[in-house]
């Protein structure tokens, strides 16, 4: 039973006047009594016991892999976070956060946080020893030197890092690796790569309209995205457009929260989206509803695309492949083409398929042929990196003198990798992040020995848990930097405690909206937590003590100075500020000549036009045209979908007690028809299995999913073995290698069986 804490020395103590009187009454000398080994210290002579009556306010930014990258105002009292708010200065954040964002104080002050550097005696044993930072860093540094001595290079040291924290200074982790020498990097992204490549083939870059201009749209299709959960701040623009008369359509295999709020919901067969888009395109062709001026003046290859549609695409075929009736295809196409402007939001879910890149190209084509590219309120909205022009100062350290690496001349690529390494004599070794287990197991010359994991939780996010376990078992040392004990920390030798956003300085931008905000240190780092760049500096210091010149990363680290170093004139001009200090007053938005991407029709493709026909795509082994690509063949009787939950971003947030109360346990969603066939009732425990593994979970019957599909939200529950990755494989998406260094992953082309447990 909890009772609210009674005041220790009477409730009066809370009142500063009586507190002062009480202090007087005590009239203690102030000296520490002679207690041996005392921990408490005498307050410094003259140090007033001051109790701040007002809040100190700091600027923060949510660094999670979320569209919204919210600007946060943090209220601090007596060195502790009292509460947080969404910043009102950003019209996008608009003074509010999501359920995850509001839980941040609970994250900082969760008793579950990793507090100290620790060493596990036997991976997965749960036997941990607390070690000092010096000892932890020394062990790591010695191991790195040992590897270098044995192999003559550091290619057996690998980094697995992605989107756990998008604060710009966190690219210092990559910088730490570069400053050690040439290492192995897990590249690519599980997130959005197939779509990035697709948009690069079509337009020369991934670039989306300002989401705030959706208010100007007359017709909005949200296709494979669920902003009601995953980009709550975008919803107000969709609603406003609707109030002004726009129609909102959601196309998704699952009746999502966004779909429930839409004017029309279209349940598409998973991975059949490309067929639907092409069917719509074919119908518009037949109807002559094409923007002739766009396709003739600003596009390349429309005639060939037309020919392809005429020859290969019929409405009946599209209806069969997509599961959407021909009448609906016709109606949707006609409405979309008639509205001006009309826009499509392409979600990342639609490209996590073996035909994902091709699907995005087909949808882009639909937006382009209706003349909606380059238009305010229009656009094929997928994402952008236009505001990411920072210095990546912590990333640009040269390799130490004499360091040896790969000689194949293939520099590192990545969606967020902005450093050009193409002129170097040696390069790092790239491996596919989306096939982590396979890559570790297959690594040779040299075999991977050591893995550094930061901003990432592969045991929750990477497919095929059984295989991943095998792979980790071959590693000599695993270091994980994190805030909480995840399934990956369980497989670490050394874990290092990382600061939360409130305990470090950095700067944040979004891949969706166009706002820029700083993230100030609002409180002292709790326990012994440190930020990625501070850890890198400590490692550099120790590396150099052991052998001078063995690491070029700075050995001193002030996170504020490093945040400052990220800014440049380009950023200042783009955002119309004269110093980063201006951001203390609140976030600012980029000065955009137009809210429309491609408003000047100067595409970055080889032809400078929108390319319905992309030779580059053909050169990369794809179809030149946005042709349909067949779906992956099923490997079990039911399709398995594992999308995002409302309560977590990947493996973040769901572990907090607050979220557990809202969302206490994992469930599998199953259509009543499918359940009846298998004798499964609502609330039954079921076993889901396939050739990769199995899991047990409670069934929830719903017709929000199709009868041939089952769905579980991917998440990490702290006290549960639940892990959707037990069932997934590492099948690649069709695209992604061009811009991010490795193909995407077909997360939604997965299959399983289900039975009563």
């Amino acid at each position: 039973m909890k009772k609210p804490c009674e005041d220790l020395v009477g409730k009066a103590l809370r009142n500063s006047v009586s507190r002062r009187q009480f202090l007087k009454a005590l009239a203690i000398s102030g000296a520490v009594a002679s207690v041996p080994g005392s921990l408490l210290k005498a307050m410094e002579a003259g140090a007033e016991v001051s109790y701040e009556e007002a809040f100190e306010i700091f600027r923060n930014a949510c660094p999670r892999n979320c569209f919204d990258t919210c600007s946060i105002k943090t209220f601090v009292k007596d060195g502790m976070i009292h509460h947080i708010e969404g910043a009102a200065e950003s019209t996008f954040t608009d003074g509010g956060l999501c359920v995850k964002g509001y839980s941040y104080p609970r994250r900082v002050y969760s008793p579950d946080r990793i507090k100290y550097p620790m060493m596990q005696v036997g991976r997965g044993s749960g036997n941990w020893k607390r070690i000092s930072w010096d000892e932890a860093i020394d062990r790591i540094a010695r191991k790195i030197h040992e590897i270098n001595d044995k192999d003559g290079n550091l290619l057996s040291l690998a980094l697995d890092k992605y989107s756990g924290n998008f604060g710009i200074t966190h690219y210092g982790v990559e910088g730490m690796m570069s400053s050690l020498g040439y290492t192995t990097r897990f590249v690519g992204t599980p997130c959005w790569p197939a779509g990035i490549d697709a948009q690069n083939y079509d337009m020369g870059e991934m670039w989306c309209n300002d989401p705030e201009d959706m208010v100007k749209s007359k017709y909005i299709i949200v296709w494979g995205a669920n902003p009601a959960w995953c980009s709550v701040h975008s919803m107000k623009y969709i609603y406003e457009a609707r109030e002004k008369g726009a129609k909102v359509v959601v196309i998704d295999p699952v009746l999502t929260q966004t779909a429930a709020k839409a004017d029309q919901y279209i349940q598409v067969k998973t991975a059949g989206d490309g067929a639907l888009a092409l069917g719509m395109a074919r119908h518009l062709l037949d109807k002559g509803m094409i923007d002739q001026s766009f396709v003739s003046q600003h596009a390349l290859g429309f005639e060939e695309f037309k020919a392809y549609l005429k020859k290969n695409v019929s409405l009946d075929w599209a209806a069969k492949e997509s599961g959407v009736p021909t009448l609906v295809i016709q109606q949707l196409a006609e409405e979309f083409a008639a509205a001006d402007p009309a826009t499509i939001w392409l979600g990342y879910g639609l490209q996590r398929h073996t035909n994902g890149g091709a699907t995005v190209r087909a949808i882009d084509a639909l937006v382009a042929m209706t003349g909606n590219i380059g238009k305010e309120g229009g656009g094929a909205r997928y994402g952008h990196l236009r505001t990411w022009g920072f210095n990546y100062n912590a990333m640009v350290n040269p390799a130490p003198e004499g360091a040896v690496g790969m000689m194949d001349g293939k520099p590192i690529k990545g969606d967020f990798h902005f450093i050009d390494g193409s002129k170097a004599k040696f390069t790092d070794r790239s491996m596919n992040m989306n096939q982590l287990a396979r890559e570790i197991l297959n690594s040779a010359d040299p075999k991977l020995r050591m893995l550094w994991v930061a901003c990432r939780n592969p045991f929750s996010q990477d497919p095929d848990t059984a295989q991943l376990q095998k792979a980790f078992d071959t590693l000599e040392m695993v270091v994980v930097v994190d805030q909480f004990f995840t399934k990956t920390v369980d497989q670490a030798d050394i874990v290092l405690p990382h600061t939360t956003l409130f305990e470090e300085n950095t700067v944040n931008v979004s891949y969706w909206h166009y706002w820029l905000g700083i993230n100030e240190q609002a409180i002292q780092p709790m326990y012994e937590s440190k930020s990625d760049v501070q850890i890198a500096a400590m490692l550099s210091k120790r590396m150099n003590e052991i052998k001078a010149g063995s690491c070029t990363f700075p050995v001193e680290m002030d996170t504020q100075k490093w945040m400052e170093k990220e800014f440049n004139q380009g950023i200042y001009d783009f955002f119309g500020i004269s110093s980063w200090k201006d951001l203390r007053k609140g976030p600012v938005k980029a000065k955009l000549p137009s809210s429309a991407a491609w408003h000047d029709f100067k595409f970055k493709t080889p032809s400078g036009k929108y390319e319905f026909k992309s030779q580059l795509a053909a050169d990369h082994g794809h179809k030149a045209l946005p042709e349909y690509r067949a779906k992956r063949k099923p490997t079990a009787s039911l399709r398995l979908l594992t999308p995002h939950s409302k309560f977590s971003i990947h493996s973040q947030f769901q572990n907090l007690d607050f979220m557990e109360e809202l969302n206490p346990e994992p469930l599998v969603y199953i259509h009543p028809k499918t359940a009846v066939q298998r004798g499964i009732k609502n609330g039954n425990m079921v076993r889901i299995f396939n050739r990769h593994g199995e899991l047990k979970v409670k069934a929830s019957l719903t017709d929000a999913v199709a009868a041939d599909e089952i769905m579980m939200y991917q998440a990490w529950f702290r006290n549960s073995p639940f892990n959707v990755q037990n069932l997934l494989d590492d099948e690649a998406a069709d695209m992604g290698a061009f811009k991010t260094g490795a193909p995407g992953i077909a997360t939604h082309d997965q299959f399983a069986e289900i039975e009563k447990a």
Partner: protein
Amino acid sequence: MTETDTTLTPLDTSSRLGCSLRDFFIASNGDDLLTAFHRLNELAPELPRPISADSLEFSFNRLFIGPQAPIAPPFASVYQDEDDLVMGRATQDARDLYHSLGLVSPWQGTFPDDHIALEIDACLQMKARIAETGSNEITTLYQNFLQEHLLQWVPQFAARVYSAEGEAPQILGVVRLTVDWLQNELT
């Protein structure tokens, strides 16, 4: 091998016990834990026989430290506040109490002030001052602190420790000893 700390000798048994409990809960490695345990064992022979420093530390970390979510976080606010968090009202209470005594946690702002070891330390400080000055105010404060604060949460904390499966009985014994010690301090 038991190593007797001579600095504790002048203290009365209750303070010696308090010092060793404090040292046990604040220990940051197996050796310090074992040393504190040996001292406690001298004063409380009913404790189970010692185990290796490593075994003691592994269990101690699972219960109180991490990196897994600790079974029984040793912070008052986790039990006393509405939210199961650190740095809550109970933390502020502990901080206020220390300040009232002219004391401050060396880790204020980076470590919750209401950690069990710091609170036991505050008890020892108050005991020493009462012994020196006979101050009524401090006696009241101390009794209040025990009754309204420590004895509110430590039994709940202890219950979590007792319910843990497979953890070192030595630690369970120390926790039991802590509750007893606090109760004995109440007059």
